[in-house]
């Protein structure tokens, strides 16, 4: 079901991780998270969850919560289909994406 969503794809030179970001178009930290990925050259895809139908959104959040055993807050990033990040705390994103120390 997650694969059928209308993600926006962002090109980047760094393709060492498969990154999907579930975000809100109204959220400052979501925008900062996407800007962080942009400025570090990551390729990724994202979707603004506040712009999809409520039923779809509810289903997506349920899938994410079941899969990652975590309440869904935004931004919610899935890395390589395994790791996940909730909220934008830059040191955590750097560590998970292999930028620690940079």
């Amino acid at each position, binding site marked *: 079901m997650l694969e059928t969503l209308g993600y926006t794809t962002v090109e980047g030179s760094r393709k060492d991780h498969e990154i999907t970001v579930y975000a*809100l*178009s*109204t*959220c*400052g*930290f*979501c*925008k*900062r998270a996407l800007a962080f990925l942009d400025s570090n050259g990551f390729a990724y895809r994202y979707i603004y*969850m*506040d712009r999809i139908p*409520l039923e779809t*959104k*509810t289903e997506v*959040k349920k899938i994410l919560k079941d899969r990652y055993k975590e*309440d*869904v*807050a*935004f931004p919610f990033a899935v890395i390589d289909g395994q790791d996940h990040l909730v*909220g*934008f*705390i*830059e040191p955590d994103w750097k560590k998970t994406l292999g930028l620690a120390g940079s």
Partner: protein
Amino acid sequence: MAEKTGEQTGGFAAMVAKKQGWKVNPEADFTSMLVEGLTVNWNRYGYYLCPCRDSEGSREADADLVCPCKYSWEDIAEYGHCYCALYLSPGFAESGRSPSGIPDRRFRKA
């Protein structure tokens, strides 16, 4: 319900901050995004849903997330800023630090 402009929402945020003894985040670009997000939410839902929270589909379900959200007071006391970082404690504002993401207290287990 009449639509709000960004200017009106900015006035609302300033009024809330003044009443509560908080400061509006001085990072102009970031705060502008939040004010725009709040404005979108008012014009979309009819109430100022926190720009960093997702609507559960009704005003009743979102009641604790209407700006200033129910968790603002505790978050500002603990972290120096609210969840979306629109409002800061005076001390945090004076420190010059930039807010970072914090856990959503809504999900905190009692």
